[in-house]
């Protein structure tokens, strides 16, 4: 018990500071999340079964329409594509970052973070300017004589994939870097000593050890892509619309909250199931612990 004596010499015991135990300490946080996050989502989902008439009509309409199913499929295809390409590009970058001298690492990190902090809309418009028919990329390719007609790089699947991959890259590089950095280089030396060639070093040692980071990064990118709105709507055409755009149309243009809520619930369920799968298979974040 610490004490405190004032000028007159009276000793008063300091009030005891008790650490909150059990549930009471997290009540404010729970209250906050409950009021500002769970409740609105719950209300929207309720509306999906209550409006315009009570029942599962909205869901029947969503699942029964080939157009909406196409949008669901397209959402998964684009998200999958972006995830795979981000992994293929992100892994070598993360690996290079992990083995580079420190000063160079901080320069590359600065570039990564600066691009992440730049306004998303600005970055998306920048890609539009680069990719359009009279854009830099087409002009360059035509100037080099590689093509004689401008390529259609924007307002289609190509544009969406390029733009989204670029935006997602930091989200895959950062977790991968963290994992690769922790891998003991002597494991690779040991593999080489035991006669593994370079390819075997990569596939049998490095990739398995980096798997938790890859899974975490891939899941994050995939889930973020599922709900992406700005980039697909600006760089894509309507023929490859994604789910978030459909929800926005229901809510903002048609003011049909029932359908919007139904589409949102489908997205939420898919996202949570993916997360469950990830926890089940890669929940153990201890590399090597099988």
């Amino acid at each position, binding site marked *: 018990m610490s004490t405190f004596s004032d000028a007159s010499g009276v000793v008063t015991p300091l009030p005891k500071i008790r650490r909150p135990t059990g549930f*009471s300490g997290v*009540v404010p946080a729970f209250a906050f999340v409950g009021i500002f996050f769970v409740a609105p989502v719950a209300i929207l989902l309720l509306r999906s079964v209550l409006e315009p008439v009570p029942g599962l009509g909205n869901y029947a309409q969503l699942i029964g329409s080939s157009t909406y199913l196409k949008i669901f499929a397209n959402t998964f295809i684009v998200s999958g594509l972006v995830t795979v390409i981000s992994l293929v590009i992100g892994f070598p970058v993360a690996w290079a970052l992990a083995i580079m001298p420190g000063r160079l690492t901080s320069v590359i990190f600065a570039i990564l973070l600066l691009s992440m902090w730049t306004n998303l809309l600005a970055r998306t418009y920048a890609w539009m300017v680069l990719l359009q028919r*009279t854009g830099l990329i087409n002009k360059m390719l035509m100037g080099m004589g590689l093509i004689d007609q401008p390529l259609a790089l924007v307002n289609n699947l190509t544009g969406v994939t390029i733009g989204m991959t670029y935006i997602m890259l930091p989200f895959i590089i950062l977790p991968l870097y963290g994992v690769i950095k922790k891998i003991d280089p002597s494991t690779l030396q040991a593999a080489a000593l035991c006669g593994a060639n370079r390819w075997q070093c990569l596939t049998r040692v490095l990739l398995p050890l980096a798997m938790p980071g890859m899974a975490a990064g891939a899941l994050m990118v995939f889930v973020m892509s599922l709900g992406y709105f700005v980039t697909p*709507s600006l760089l894509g055409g309507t023929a490859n*619309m994604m789910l978030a755009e459909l929800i926005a149309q229901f809510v*903002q243009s*048609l*003011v049909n909250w029932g359908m919007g809520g139904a589409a949102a619930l489908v997205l939420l369920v898919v996202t949570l199931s993916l997360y469950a799968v990830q926890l089940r298979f890669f929940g153990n974040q201890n590399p090597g612990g099988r």
Partner: protein
Amino acid sequence: MKTTFAFAAVAAFVAVSAPAKADNMVFSSWGGTTQDAQKAAWASPFTEKTGITVVQDGPTDYGKLKAMVEAGEVTWDVVDVEGDYAAQAGKNGQLEKLDFSVIDKSKLDPRFVTDYSVGSFYYSFVIGCNADAVKACPKTWADLFDTAKFPGKRTFYKWSAPGVIEAALLADGVAADKLYPLDLDRAFKKLDTIKSDIIWWSGGAQSQQLLASAEAPFGSVWNGRMTALAATGIKVETSWEQNITAADALVVPKGSPNVESAMKFIALATSAEPQAALAKATGYAPINVDSAKLMDPETAKTLPDQQTASQVNADMSYWADNRDAIGEKWYAWQAK
């Protein structure tokens, strides 16, 4: 104890975001150059005259508007919306009836006046073209749908709203006075013929960008955007052949805490001088019939209200009744 604190914090947060009270009202519009012009032409003189501050907000979002009205927490007092939405929301009881003892409707173009809304400004969908980028510019809707004569991408408005379906039917040879009720199947069939050549624009700025970059060298755009493009020095051509008019409307959401100020604001915004000032700044037409006299003839003749020769009026009341059904078909067709 801690819970009380959390709730107190929440309560304080809610209190801070409570709606504006007297001597202060909120106007929501679509942002960008149009809202800047509305602020200068309407809000500033209104504040000068009445002492009521007008807070600018936006962009207008129908989902948000519906949520406000339903929750009884209306933070927008006057909202600039599209004409077809205004007609529909009025019918659905989401808007306050306008007080025509305050708003003088005798001078307003009757095409754009209902019990719940008056025009804000009106615009035409015209056939815009970047003349530097192509050999020849399409002159009619039929031209715009003719990919053999005019190869390349063309741009159209992305959202379900009056304009594109009408253009498709006119291109297919439907007479302007026989447009309504819209033959949707025929329109979609016509749109199918050029679907792979359409690039959609979702906002005015994007339509300018598509035309200027020749990503889509021609298309159906709001006339005001052609005025803005011409001002940037690009050689543009605008065809007013069968230009399709639609109007924005001013409405007051049901439950607005400042209905009186809102009515006064609408009264001023629709009077001759502020309407003329807005038209000068935007290239959209005034809905007050006395405004044209107040403008220099050179500017006045570039506006949609002078382009009545072959003008087609989109039927807002038809759209209000069929907005949802058309919207669902429209987006389903787009995504196919």
